[in-house]
């Protein structure tokens, strides 16, 4: 039997096939899946903010795109993933409320997505697929066995990337 590993907000975890890793109700946060297709080991981080260097209180490293990705890679390597094989799939970064203006506070979803892409580019990790932006929440499940990311949203059909 495969287990389902849950990841909460500002949290991350790793998983190996045949287990499945999931995070529920991504809003403006971004779910970052890193995957080693050879060992079939995956990691999932649910980040809330783009940049740990801009925030004084940054003790929870899983809260930020930059630091969460670094730790996630280490966690994955510890259970046997190969750094050079890693690829990524990302989802989330929605704008949940339709504010008329586009002030910094309101664009947080976009900024989380941008910061995630920037960090992955720095590390040379390719993004194979993404489902980001728009204005609705997403629940995501990643299957290391197939490398597919299942995305569920309220009133929408299951999307597989």
């Amino acid at each position, binding site marked *: 039997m495969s287990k389902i590993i849950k990841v*909460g*907000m*500002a*949290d991350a975890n790793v998983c190996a096939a045949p287990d499945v890793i999931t*995070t*529920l*109700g*991504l*809003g*403006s*946060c971004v779910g970052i899946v890193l995957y080693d297709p050879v060992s079939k080991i995956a990691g999932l981080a649910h980040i*809330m*903010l783009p940049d740990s260097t801009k*925030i*004084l*209180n940054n*003790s*929870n490293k899983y*809260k930020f795109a930059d630091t969460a990705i670094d730790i996630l890679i280490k966690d994955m390597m510890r259970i046997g993933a190969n750094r050079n094989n890693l690829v990524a799939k990302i989802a989330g970064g*929605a704008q*949940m*409320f*339709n*504010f008329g203006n586009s002030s910094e*506070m309101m664009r*947080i979803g976009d900024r989380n997505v941008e910061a995630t892409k920037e960090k992955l580019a720095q590390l040379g990790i390719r993004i194979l697929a993404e489902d980001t932006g728009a*204005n*609705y*929440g*997403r*629940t995501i499940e990643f299957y290391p066995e197939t490398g597919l990311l299942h995305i*569920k949203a*309220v009133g929408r059909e299951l999307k597989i990337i």
Partner: protein
Amino acid sequence: MSDIDFNKINSMEFDVLREIGNIGAGNATTALSQMINSKIDMKVPNVELLEFKNLADIVGGADRIVVGILFTLENDIDGMMMFMMDMPASRYLVNILLGNPQPDDLSGDYEFSEMELSALSEIGNIIAGAYLSSLSTLTNLTITSSIPYMAIDMAGAILSVPAIEFGKIGDKALLIETEFGDKEKSVNGYFILIPTLNSYKAILNSLGL
């Protein structure tokens, strides 16, 4: 003036925030009661500081569908305030407000009509207005709120918006859960007040802390 860090909040500060929540939610319930012209009881609110990863559990799970009504705040207190209800609670209040009969079962999928959506928005307005005016009176600070912004989606997704604001100042969020209803039925509502760091200082300072 010390920096507020929610990881190390002292019991005095927590009590003050709890009390603000208490009074605010009490006033909000009274306002709701007047709006629908029937008595609504409220239990003593449950105030909790929660880690982000546990935040959505309190409302029944991150993928549970809820209605979130969000206001941005300006003036002496900057930040956001959100009022959140699950679907049965929302339908219950909308039915009272519009004079519709209550169905036996309020759970299950449901899509609100335009009319019901604007009623919900108005409920949010009244509840938030009462909450904020009590906060304003208590602290002697001027607070201006925006129009209500509403979203109906997964609890985790809706909570991510205030959680991200809390995330800038700490690793926990302050959630006020209140249970209200009439003698036949009770429903749950959740208040989340997210002042910016400076506004927290302003609130605590205004109360002599």
